[in-house]
């Protein structure tokens, strides 16, 4: 048996986990996620509606040839990417603070980060409405300091929708970046400083590249959440800003055109899964360390 080739029959020690551990979870998702979704997409033409019945190709053709819908698709992606990028920019310093400077207060900082997520989305959005109203706090303040002459309409536009989304999603970004920053060896930064790099250069050349992994994870989460959200857009965007999820919501609640909703869901899903896969590959390549 000494020279017998054993490859493939015995795999050595594979840690505590067996690949089979995925089976139950995967089965759960297949049974309660994949099949229902597919089932739903196949049977949409049988649902109760008075809407005109058209072949599915009609909707896909519309989505991919009508400049308006191409614009919607582009807006959906732009909004998600935009919100994600803003979250990275404003969230990164906070993550840095949390990991490097908060010290024993880090628990409190994390608590404050999560606190907004504990209130209902409806009320969070309402808080913004009060602030942004034509005679709301923000306008009152701007009028008071003579920055503006007449109230600005913040609400019902892209601005308030983006602010609302960033507000809801930025904690996810901060937490994702912080968890990676935490694992960066401080010695790396110190040695860069000793080698004569300025604080800023150290950040740019050492800290930032090492934290890309966390930005990647944060990007996935925030992008996907933004990509699928409509409640904030509905309540703060005033319908001014149209994205696929919002149109899907319209189809469900008002025009009951389920086939169109199904077609749009598929496009949205394709965007999301494509992005997700891309990001995971990127992370895999950047983060294979130990």
């Amino acid at each position: 048996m000494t020279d017998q080739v054993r490859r493939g029959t015995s795999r050595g020690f594979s840690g505590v986990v067996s690949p089979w551990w995925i089976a139950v979870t995967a089965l759960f998702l297949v049974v309660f996620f994949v099949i229902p979704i597919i089932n739903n997409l196949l049977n949409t033409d049988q649902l109760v509606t008075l809407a005109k019945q058209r072949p599915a190709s009609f909707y896909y053709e519309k989505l991919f040839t009508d400049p308006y819908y191409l614009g919607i698709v582009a807006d959906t992606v732009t909004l998600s990417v935009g919100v994600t990028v803003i979250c990275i920019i404003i969230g990164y310093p906070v993550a840095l603070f949390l990991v490097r400077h908060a010290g024993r207060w880090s628990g409190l900082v994390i608590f404050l980060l999560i606190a907004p997520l504990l209130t209902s989305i409806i009320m969070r959005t309402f808080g913004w409405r009060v602030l942004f109203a034509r005679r709301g706090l923000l306008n009152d303040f701007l009028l008071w300091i003579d920055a503006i002459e007449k109230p600005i309409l913040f609400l019902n536009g892209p601005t308030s929708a983006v602010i609302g989304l960033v507000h809801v999603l930025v904690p996810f970004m901060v937490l994702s970046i912080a968890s990676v920053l935490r694992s960066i060896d401080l010695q790396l930064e110190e040695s860069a400083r000793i080698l004569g790099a300025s604080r800023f250069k150290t950040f740019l050349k050492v800290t930032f590249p090492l934290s890309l992994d966390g930005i990647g994870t944060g990007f996935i989460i925030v992008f996907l959440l933004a990509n699928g959200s409509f409640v904030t857009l509905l309540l703060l965007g005033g319908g001014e800003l149209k994205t696929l999820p919002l149109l899907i919501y319209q189809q469900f609640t008002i025009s009951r055109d389920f086939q169109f909703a199904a077609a749009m869901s598929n496009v949205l899903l394709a965007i999301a899964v494509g992005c997700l896969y891309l990001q995971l590959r990127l992370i895999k390549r950047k983060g294979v360390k130990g």
Partner: protein
Amino acid sequence: MKFDNHIRRSGPAMLGAAMLAFSVNPVSAEDITVTSFGGIWETAIKDCFASEFEKRTGSKANVLIGSPAQWMSQIEANPDNPPIDVIVTTQSQTMAAGEGGLISRATAKEVPNLADVDPIFIKAVDGWGACFDFGAFILAYNKDTIKNPPKSIKEFVDRTIKGDWMATMPSVSYAIAPDIIWSFADLYGGSADNVDPAFAVFKQLKDSGNMISWSSVTDFLNQMSTGDADIGMYWDGRAYAFIDKGNDWMGVIKPTDKAFMSCVAMNKAKGAPDAAWDYLNIVFEPGPQACFSDHLKYGVTNQKVQYSEEMKNRVTWPKDLRAPNVSTSRKIAQNAADWIERWNKEIGF
């Protein structure tokens, strides 16, 4: 630390099977589940209909809060054993539910009180039961900022475009947006086959920058309260209820060029028990209807209803309403998707 302690500490995280302990409480055969919108709607349905039903039959009527789109899907998903026995729907939803086989057709045979309902509210839903209350889109305005309010919808439109005030109207995300599109078309000489006149008006309003939109009934009140809007098209009952709560600053105008009408129907889900018929009969009875009207300040549909003195002055009578007939209603439902698409493309709020 003892090794064993450590084992015990890591234990509880894994035990997740407790879930099956929670389950639905079984509802006895006689009890029924009826539906309602939230807030004062729920109070009214409970006080005027459900409690009356319970008093007379001894069974319970559970009131479920939510929205018609949700209920229709729930019935459709469980046609044999619907989780809902009586469903509240808008006009076009009623027809879709009826033709889709979700509800039983109610006539005076099953619901005797339907005999006294004004026929226009039966036609409004193509004979799938009837509407039990109706609302009119009046113009509600802020008396403090508008001293000289418009008399008609057309005047409201013109002066909004001119910039006399900030105005608000129902958004495309509001459930009855297609009905409003048709109403504007009808007002400006179009029809369910030709809504160009309506869109021409919307375009002007939009371009003027003086029009915003509201997407729920409270959304409107917020806009008026915070000053985002000075005037808007709004449900009469809702406006009166708001004023009665001490908001004297709000004024109401019944437009001279016919207020847009929309009504709400109530029907028995197809698989529901016969007790649902008893409930519906109460819903269409003059007494409970008057009670409902008192609560919500809306008009109700049984012709024998004795309105309070106050409501008599407030209700917009059917002859002053702009309401679609049956074939128009069907066209509205069929064209809804196209209109909303057009709205999205051309108007956008």
